[in-house]
């Protein structure tokens, strides 16, 4: 198992390096001179002192060729040095480690909420295929899938204020046990829920036509147990494989949700960094984001054989 995880890392590293290289190149050639970016914002006459700028450039190694600078950046990363933010001057590590817990907690809650809500709903829809229940669930899922977080968020806020006039506007962060998390959590989970409802429904319909479900009924197993013991297990396998995709949806969604609801997480940090062309921060966030997705995919690969004994066998024989 350990060797397998190591192999996965080995495959992941070149791809993430390529992505980082792309972002670094964009920063290098696109955004222009980082020193100028800093000093244009700096007070006083520093911005107009070309000699001083050159000196700093020299000492930071920013006059060296592109590939050398990128190698230097990666080498620092390996040592755990993420560099400093261009806009605030604070260490990127400090910024990220302040923001990451907010986003991670939110993402984790969202994954749990999705699993708890979407899998039963998807099953319910499939077991009542082509009835009103099915149409309602499927229609709502398609609807939720299509509504962007930055539209759903404000509209829900309005609705909440109108419906419960006394309530304070849910804005800001107070940990996962604070009421204020509810609205952003719900909005963030809309798309993952829609995705999993549809996946589950399709998977259940597929499994329902399998002979072994008929066998279970012929054995006189009660319908509820047929659903829980015979249908759910084989359905979970294809659904679990969507975890990576869900993670991407959540990471994407977090950008908007954190912005709309004023959560001090990675999403908001991203948007601020974009506005300020703060590339060290953007690079660090890209790294974290793709690490998250990689870990999710790895988790899927580890869980898969536990859920489907046939996959386990196939791997062993390989």
């Amino acid at each position, binding site marked *: 198992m350990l060797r397998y995880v190591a192999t996965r890392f080995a495959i992941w590293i070149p791809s993430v390096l390529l992505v980082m290289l792309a972002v670094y190149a964009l920063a290098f050639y696109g955004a222009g001179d980082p020193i100028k970016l800093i000093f244009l914002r700096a007070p006083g006459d520093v911005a107009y002192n070309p000699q001083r700028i050159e000196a700093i450039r020299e000492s930071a190694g920013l006059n060296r060729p592109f590939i050398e600078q990128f190698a230097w950046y990666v080498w620092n990363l390996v040592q755990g040095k993420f560099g400093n933010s261009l806009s605030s001057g604070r260490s990127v590590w400090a910024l990220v480690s302040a923001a990451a817990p907010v986003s991670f907690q939110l993402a984790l809650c969202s994954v749990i909420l999705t699993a708890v809500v979407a899998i039963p709903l998807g099953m319910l829809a499939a077991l009542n295929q082509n009835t009103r229940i099915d149409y309602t669930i499927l229609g709502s899922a398609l609807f939720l899938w*299509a509504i962007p977080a930055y*539209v759903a968020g404000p509209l829900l806020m309005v609705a909440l204020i109108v419906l419960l006039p006394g309530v304070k506007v849910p804005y800001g962060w107070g940990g996962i046990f604070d009421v204020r998390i509810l609205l952003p959590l719900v909005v963030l989970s809309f798309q993952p829920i829609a995705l999993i409802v549809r996946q589950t429904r399709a998977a259940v319909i597929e499994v329902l036509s399998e002979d072994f479900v008929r066998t279970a009924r012929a054995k006189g197993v009660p319908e509820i147990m047929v659903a829980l013991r015979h249908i759910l297990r084989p359905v979970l396998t294809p659904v679990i494989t969507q975890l990576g995709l869900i993670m991407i949806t959540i*990471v994407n969604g977090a950008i908007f949700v954190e912005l709309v609801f004023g959560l001090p997480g990675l999403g908001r940090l991203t948007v601020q960094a974009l506005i300020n062309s703060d590339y060290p921060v953007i690079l660090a966030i890209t790294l974290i984001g793709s690490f998250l997705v990689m870990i999710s995919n790895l988790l899927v690969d580890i869980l898969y054989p536990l859920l489907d004994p046939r996959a386990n066998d196939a791997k062993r024989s390989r």
Partner: protein
Amino acid sequence: MTLVQPNPAIIEEEPPVSLWRDAWHRLRRNKLAIFGLGVVVLLAFVAISGPYLTPYDFLSQDLAARNQAPSLAHLFGTDDLGRDVFSRVVYGTRTAFLVAVVVTAIALVIGTTLGAIAGFFGEPYDRIIMWLTDMAMSVPNLLLVVVINASLKNPIARWMEAQYMATLNPFYRETIWIDFFLVFGSMALISWPPYARLVRAQVLSIRTRPYITAAMALGLSNRIIMMRYVVPNALGPLIVSVSAGLGTAMVLESAFSFLGVGVNPPTPSWGNMISDGLRVWQHYPHLLAAPAFVLGLASVAFSFLGDGLNDALNPRGTK
């Protein structure tokens, strides 16, 4: 035992029902899908004939009539510059369709080509292309694209300006092309992998199916096998994902505009109308509601249509 002539009255066949007619039949019974199709057709009509439908120019400002609530004169009201929101939404439809169609077309061409190469030619192309695909699908794509957009916008603008100075060709003054070029390019960049995967999987699975072997055993030419067996079987899933992809592209474009890296004002796009509306929604909810509603409607319509097509074209899954 003697062979008996079959009774001709019984064997007489109804005309065989083709795959597409059959699919249309199933689609027609799906109310959500028909609703989706109706909305898509309507929006496409609006997108094409937009300028002839709008009572006002999308840029004409009427400072005397700012931030008006919806009325007969202004169906969706007016914005902070007194522009008619209805006309802007109609022009936004144009932008949305343009972006969606072009992006999906580019992504489809790239994806289909790479997927088909991977499927048909196998190693080593397969490995390289699939590695690229996996990579593109395993990074937070929105983040990447936003970064690309944000960083390339200024350099390209500078380059265009320089070209204009050098050539005095007025084409280089049309900064709107930068927007479209960047938006198309970066969105296509993250949109192609699903198509590549799909096409590769289709090619691989169809190639080994017994009916292809059977068709080859019958001595049918490669062209006929491609046209009659491979294409119809691969087309269904592709149509489904194109329908879903069009909707996704529209939402994606509005997400870009929302983050300020999409199509720039004053070109109307639903996304930048929404992000403008968000700033004042407490006072003028119609400025948010109108574009948000139309965007939601379009996206939902594509999503219903895609789902209906999926059921209609994969009859196996609907029994």
